[in-house]
């Protein structure tokens, strides 16, 4: 194993931990940065048995695009769900479960997809099949189940597949 893989197994986690330490301290000082980087180096080493492999993340423009899309969808989702809750009679809603077959394999990508589904319009991801190849999704108002599934696959899963490759 090379030096980079042994002492710095997860450079992204190191950066995220350092960033979170600075956020918690609520000020940017040299001491804070040093302490954050120290924690960012030690914690991944200490917990490296929990994540033996680092996910391959590439395609930075795609990540930015995905983040913006999801942020926009979260806002749209909230307005939509708030509208349904406030002004629709309960029996007008058509809630239903649906199965979303998965084309992506990386566990990180599937986790991201499940989180995204929960945060975006009218859908909550409820369960994963035992072999990890299908998601159970509940929709608050889904008159068109197939359309919703196709939407999830086209809008989020395809992009996640490109990011996590």
């Amino acid at each position, binding site marked *: 194993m090379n030096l980079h893989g042994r002492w710095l197994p997860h450079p992204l986690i190191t950066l995220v931990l350092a960033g*979170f330490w600075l*956020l*918690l*301290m*609520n*000020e940017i000082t040299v001491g804070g940065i040093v302490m954050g980087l120290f924690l960012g180096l030690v914690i991944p080493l200490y917990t490296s048995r929990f994540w033996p492999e680092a996910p391959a993340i590439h395609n930075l423009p795609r990540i930015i695009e995905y983040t913006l899309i999801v942020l926009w969808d*979260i*806002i749209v*989702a*909230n307005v939509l*769900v*708030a509208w349904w*809750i*406030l002004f629709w009679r*309960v029996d007008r*809603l058509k*809630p239903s*479960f*649906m*199965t979303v*077959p998965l084309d992506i*394999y990386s566990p990180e990508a599937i986790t991201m997809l*499940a*989180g995204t589904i*929960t*945060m975006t319009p*009218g859908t*909550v*991801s*409820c*369960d*994963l*099949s*035992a*072999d*990890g*190849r*299908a998601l*159970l999704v*509940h929709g*608050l108002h889904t008159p068109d189940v197939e359309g919703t599934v196709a939407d999830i696959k086209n809008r989020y899963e395809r992009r996640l597949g490109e990011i996590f490759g």
Partner: protein
Amino acid sequence: MLMFIAEILVALLIVIGSTFALIGSFGLVKLPDLVTRLHGPTKATTLGVGAVLIASMVYFTVLEGEFSFHELVITLFLFLTAPLTANIIAKAYMHRHIRHDSLPPTNRTEGWATYDPPGEEGPLVPTQKPVTEPPATPPAKA
């Protein structure tokens, strides 16, 4: 002028945020069963609290003059944990109150993980539409 804009922004964010929090909690009362009730708190309440936190950030940074950004920690934490709580509450509800045959089939050789714990031989519950394709293996990396 900047102060005035900041004040309007803070006031707007507080009003929008608490309204969304109220709507999410109201959904908890109005909607008919647990899986539909999950939609209110996971979306509306989380965004509402996020808006209130951003209001606090703007308030302390611009109007009080102390540079403050640690509210971002809570916002990120809430946005990361909301899907997890929704997922595990749904699983707990399914475990107790939903029969597996009232759910759509997985279209796989194994059932949903709540009823069919992974890592065991064969499905414990019927998956209704057994498929004959080989078990999924990740494609070999080139």
